[in-house]
């Protein structure tokens, strides 16, 4: 269980002074959920993920994982980035074993797990290959194996398929859903692609920008069972509806933006902000809000 409680995060930039990336953000992710965080760029979704990963510290509030406050990164939360970030001086197998070595996992166990997870991501034939010999999609497969090898219950993914060609992306999308179903991991997946979010997530959380707030929170699993496909009519339709809702809240934001200082915090958050779009998405889903 991941709990984000009234978290605030500000960044100091040389050109624009202090910007709030997150303000009073609260959010709960239950065990075994596949949550997709979607939103326009700059909406703070990556910041949120980094806070859960422990790569950044919140200025206000607290992030808790399994009830314990996050104090830094840890092997209980596997992380994948948009760039695979594999180490070029290590072979594929050594990359997968990196974290296990760090945690002093015994050699035999390390080798067994390296093999197991390379098999799982269909890269077993590449164990001894150098990183530079892999394609982008293969690198992300290895990065996935590397994250899974530490057997975390939580997987945090920051637009991991964003830089891939459509074919590799589609393949990796079905595999991550399959791995999720099989291993019952909790996954938080950040993307700016609404169709990808709807295709993957059991739950889609739409954020609006600066400071980020939850605009819509949709239980996709209840309506659209897996396997889904990005080109599937229902997926496309729901993605379009959510996007429409987001644009509406975006305008809302722009109007409010002029009186930014002061009473901003008292604004009835999700209700007003998410309003139209959320209701529309909910109508479409046949729910009543």
């Amino acid at each position, binding site marked *: 269980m991941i709990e984000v409680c009234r978290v605030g995060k500000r960044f100091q930039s040389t050109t624009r002074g202090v910007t709030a990336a997150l303000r009073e953000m609260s959010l709960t992710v239950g065990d075994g959920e596949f949550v997709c965080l979607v939103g326009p760029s700059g909406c703070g979704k990556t910041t949120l993920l980094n806070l859960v*990963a422990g790569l950044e510290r919140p200025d206000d509030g607290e992030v808790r994982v399994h009830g314990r406050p996050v104090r830094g*990164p840890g092997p209980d939360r596997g992380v994948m980035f948009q760039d695979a*970030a594999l180490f*070029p*001086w290590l072979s594929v197998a050594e990359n997968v074993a990196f974290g296990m070595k760090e945690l002093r996992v015994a050699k035999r166990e390390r080798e067994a797990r390296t093999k197991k997870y390379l098999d799982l991501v269909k890269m077993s034939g590449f164990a001894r290959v*150098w990183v530079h010999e892999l394609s982008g999609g293969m690198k992300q497969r290895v990065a996935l194996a590397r994250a899974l090898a530490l057997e975390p219950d939580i997987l945090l993914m920051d637009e991991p398929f964003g830089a891939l060609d459509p074919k590799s992306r589609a393949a990796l999308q079905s595999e991550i859903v399959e791995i999720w179903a099989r291993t019952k991991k909790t996954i938080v997946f950040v993307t700016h692609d609404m169709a990808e979010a709807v295709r993957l997530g059991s739950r889609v959380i739409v954020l609006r920008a600066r400071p980020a707030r939850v605009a819509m929170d949709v239980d996709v699993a209840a309506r659209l069972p897996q396997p889904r496909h990005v080109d599937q009519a229902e997926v496309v339709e729901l993605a379009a509806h959510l996007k429409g809702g987001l644009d509406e809240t975006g305008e809302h934001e722009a109007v409010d933006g002029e009186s930014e200082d002061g009473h901003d915090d008292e604004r009835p958050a999700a209700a007003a902000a998410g309003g139209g779009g959320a209701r529309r998405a909910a109508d479409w889903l046949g729910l009543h809000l």
Partner: protein
Amino acid sequence: MALVLAWEAASRLGLWRPWVFPSPSAIGRSLWSGVVDGSIPRGIATSLRRLVIGYLLSLVGGVGLGLGLARSRTLRESLGTIVTGLQALPSICWLPLALLWFGLSESAILFVVVAGSLLSITVATESGVSNVPPLYVRAARTMGARGATLYLRVILPAALPSILSGMRLGWTFAWRSLMAGELLFVSGGLGQLLATGRELGDMARVMAVMVAIVTLGLVTEVLFFKQLDARVREVWGTDRA
């Protein structure tokens, strides 16, 4: 080869006086006699020992200092300018001070060698470490790496290509400093053979020693640095780019 033959022919024709610029055959004879009487092998052994010790000291110190400069702002602000400035100083300028501090000893020569090669390794390490993609460090931290292992298993390996180019440069600087030191300060080694050759007006001997130095340089390059470099290129895949 043709160049050597032309040089030999020109010498025999008497285009210049042989004691100014000796012929290849005279150099060959001098080299041979130097090898047979043991003076050249002994010189090589003495110089190489100093070179290797001084270079290893520079390597350890240079990598350490470079790492410190890259990661600590205070260190950079206090030592950064000194390092850049001293890098421009030919290390032989340290000889008078080294003689004062260490006397006519092995340490004085080693000091000059270290002064010659330390900073090029430092500067290369610093730039390599500063250019390590922060994402590598973030990824490693999510896998539980921190403290010393983060440096040993991520930051230094990631900076290796740059450190290697500094090591190469450091090696040639160490050679130059050593030869200058041995020329000026009589204490055995190849530099001293050069100095005695000069005093005796034996240019064939001087050039024989130069041949020995060039050969040593080529051998270390081919046996050591070329291999390391090829390995790094293979692993990183930089030979394709």
